[in-house]
């Protein structure tokens, strides 16, 4: 926890007020405590107090077999469980240098992109709710519900979805999976348009988001922002394009990026990403080959050779990376997660200073953080 520093000029005396937002607060997206130093309603400084949800995932991993570790990742970013699982599985596969079958790759892509949709929908819902548009919240949940139904059918769980195994997948798509996804994708654009009618040109929405929480491209790179916050500042960086994994190289999609680095641009980026995800899903469904879903060479006992491995994927929140130190045994020596939310949260202070309390709420929303991932 950094010390709250006095950024105001010492010769100016102001009536300062420390306002604790959280840890139980409707708009902190979990148990985050933000200590705001206010001058009137203007934020002069703030500090995030995290750790209320700390479970020691990284430490636990050091005492588990590689197979046993996988489910823990569903519980870090519980909103995007599929992506997290994918990242872990791919890291180990990279360490083992395993080649996984094409069908499994395509299924993984479809599922992660569906998961991206679900995560972004939740973000849209809560972000709009924070700014006061209650109806968008419930509308977004309507679509998310459809997605969750598909997940439930596929994974047997709605939140902690888990179907990836080292070397492929546990089970194949159920009957009618493709039809259902196709059906959803057909309906989805119209729904998106509905949200955009409600928000895109709404003056209040614009005045609440345009010019709020600006972060320049340089500053974003300095902090290490990834994902939509980075792209909102105008940096065209997407790991799916930059270091394609799975079968992303075969699929056509665009990377949207913003220009001003404000909340509104990040909003537009995410909305566009949803469209692009849908495009990916449709392509993947079309190309989905038949074949095995598990790599035949997949070892029963996972023992990566000695060394250090780092692998990252583009999770809905940004770059999710896993740094693995293996000593050749069945348990990792050290497993470090690079959680996008945690690093994106670092931008909160820089984005919020000078804005009003109400903007802090909007900015937390636009960063799209999940405390489970931050605290681990």
């Amino acid at each position, binding site marked *: 926890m950094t010390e709250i520093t006095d950024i105001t000029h010492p010769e100016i005396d102001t009536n300062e*007020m420390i*306002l604790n937002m959280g840890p139980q*607060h*409707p*708009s902190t997206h979990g148990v985050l405590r933000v200590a705001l130093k206010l001058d009137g*309603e203007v934020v002069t400084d703030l500090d995030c107090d995290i750790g209320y949800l700390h479970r020691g995932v990284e430490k636990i991993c050091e005492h588990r077999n590689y197979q046993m570790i996988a489910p823990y990742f569903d519980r870090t970013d519980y909103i995007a469980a599929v992506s997290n699982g994918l990242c872990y599985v791919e890291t180990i596969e990279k360490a083992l240098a395993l080649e996984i079958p094409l069908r499994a790759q395509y299924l993984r892509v479809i599922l992660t992109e569906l998961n991206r949709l679900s995560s972004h929908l939740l973000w849209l819902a809560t972000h*709009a*709710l*924070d*700014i*006061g*548009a*209650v*109806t968008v919240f*419930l*509308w977004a949940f*309507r679509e998310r519900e459809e997605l969750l139904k598909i997940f439930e059918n596929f994974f047997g769980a709605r939140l902690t979805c888990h179907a990836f195994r080292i070397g492929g997948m546990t089970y194949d798509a159920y009957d009618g999976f493709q039809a259902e996804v196709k059906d959803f994708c057909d309906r989805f654009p119209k729904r998106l348009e509905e949200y955009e009618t*409600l*928000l*895109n*040109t*709404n*003056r*209040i*929405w*614009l*005045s*609440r988001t*345009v*010019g709020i929480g600006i972060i320049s491209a340089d500053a974003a790179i300095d902090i290490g922002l990834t994902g939509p916050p980075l792209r909102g500042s105008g940096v*065209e960086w997407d790991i799916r*394009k*930059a*270091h*394609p994994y799975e079968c992303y*190289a075969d699929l056509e999609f*665009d*990377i*949207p*990026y*913003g*220009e*001003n680095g404000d909340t*509104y*641009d990040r909003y*537009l*980026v995410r909305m*566009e990403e949803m469209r692009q995800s849908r495009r990916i899903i449709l392509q993947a469904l079309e190309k989905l080959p038949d074949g095995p879903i598990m790599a035949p060479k997949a070892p029963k006992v996972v023992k990566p050779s000695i060394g250090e491995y780092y692998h990252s994927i583009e999770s809905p929140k940004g770059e999710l990376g896993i740094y693995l130190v293996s000593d050749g045994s069945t348990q990792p020596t050290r497993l470090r997660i690079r959680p996008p939310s945690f690093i994106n949260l670092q931008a909160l202070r820089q984005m919020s200073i000078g804005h*009003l*309390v*109400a*903007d802090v*709420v909007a900015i937390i929303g636009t960063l799209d953080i999940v405390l489970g991932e931050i605290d681990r």
Partner: protein
Amino acid sequence: MLEYLFFFTAPTWFSSLPILKDYIDPMVLDYLVWPLVQIGLLLFVVLTLVAYLTLAERKISAWIQVRIGPNRVGPEGLLQPLADGIKLLLKEDLIPLKADREVFIIAPIIAMVAALVALAVIPWGAAWATISNIDIGLLFILAVSSLGVLGIILGGWASNSKYSLLGALRSAAQMVSYEVAMGLALIGALMFTKTLALQDMVITQERLHIWNILFQPLGFLIYLISGIAETNRAPFDLPEAESELVAGYHTEYSGFRFSLFFIAEYANMLIVSAIAVTVFLGGWYLPGLSYLFTPGSTFFVLASIGVFGLKTLALLYLFFWIRWSLPRYRYDQLMELSWKWMIPAALANIMLTATFLVLGQELALIVSQNNMLEISTLGYVFLISTAFIVTVPLTWIMLGQINKNSRDFNLREVQPLPMNRTINK
């Protein structure tokens, strides 16, 4: 004094009710029994209405949000308000230890009383359907509703909680600011009715066979927006913005005291709508109503009450609709909207309306005598067309020019996002 407070004597059918007639002095009937009956009836109706407004809001919001809404208690959830009321009554009534006890107790009462007192002068219908039609009707309502802010501000302060205090201060500043715009927005209409007495306003509109909204589109718009802000409704619900201040001034309130605040809010909505209807939408006047019933007859009065109720409910629906479709303003934007847009627009409206009235008199389209206006057919055309063609666009352009350098309302043009189609590192 009493005859000034209760101008309306009882209708003839009331005084001729056999039981009353025989045992009670007619003066007592007029000045005591009938007003009490009116007040009792009104309180009953309004409080029930308020209760059902909460249900209506939940149902409407549910429809908007593709949900079903309360449907368990009673048929179609119709008994839900009752259940809510009982729940609130039976809840534990907490007073924080460090709170200012007296003020904490008295604050919701002030809010509630201020809301309910204003009901006294609203012309719910023609003839005897109004409790009191006093000389200063509109001023009375503005005055009393300015008391309502005291309840909020004191409640927030007495709770001894930061969120409450912030909410209270916000709401005080907000209500004081928007009260100015609200009062100014009404002045344009007053120039046509030439009275502050609300019943007389309706009568004037009836006499001129017009609704003032046609003369005063801008005034109505400003009044409506200010009214929404005045009742702390979305998109101006800053004082109780749950995403920022948890629940604003009534964070620490629970149980019945909370419900008093709650009722006050809904009653205020009702009053704002009723005033809008009275001043701008012709009150109980509906063209053609007098052909159906004899003016002044009991049926006419009942029909007029119905007309008034329908108009008010339509405006209330607008309130709900707006609340569930718009995001929330930020605090400074809210203030900016008031001081940079609403108040100047209201002032411009006053100036332009006055100009056109004088011009109309110069052109002999309007005659003003004995505190009344007489408008010729051409005069109607002149006033309505100037209101729509000149006042609204002119004010719009002027304010746009004045606020050219304003920070928040000059958003950059929204561009479609650039897309990267080629990059593949």
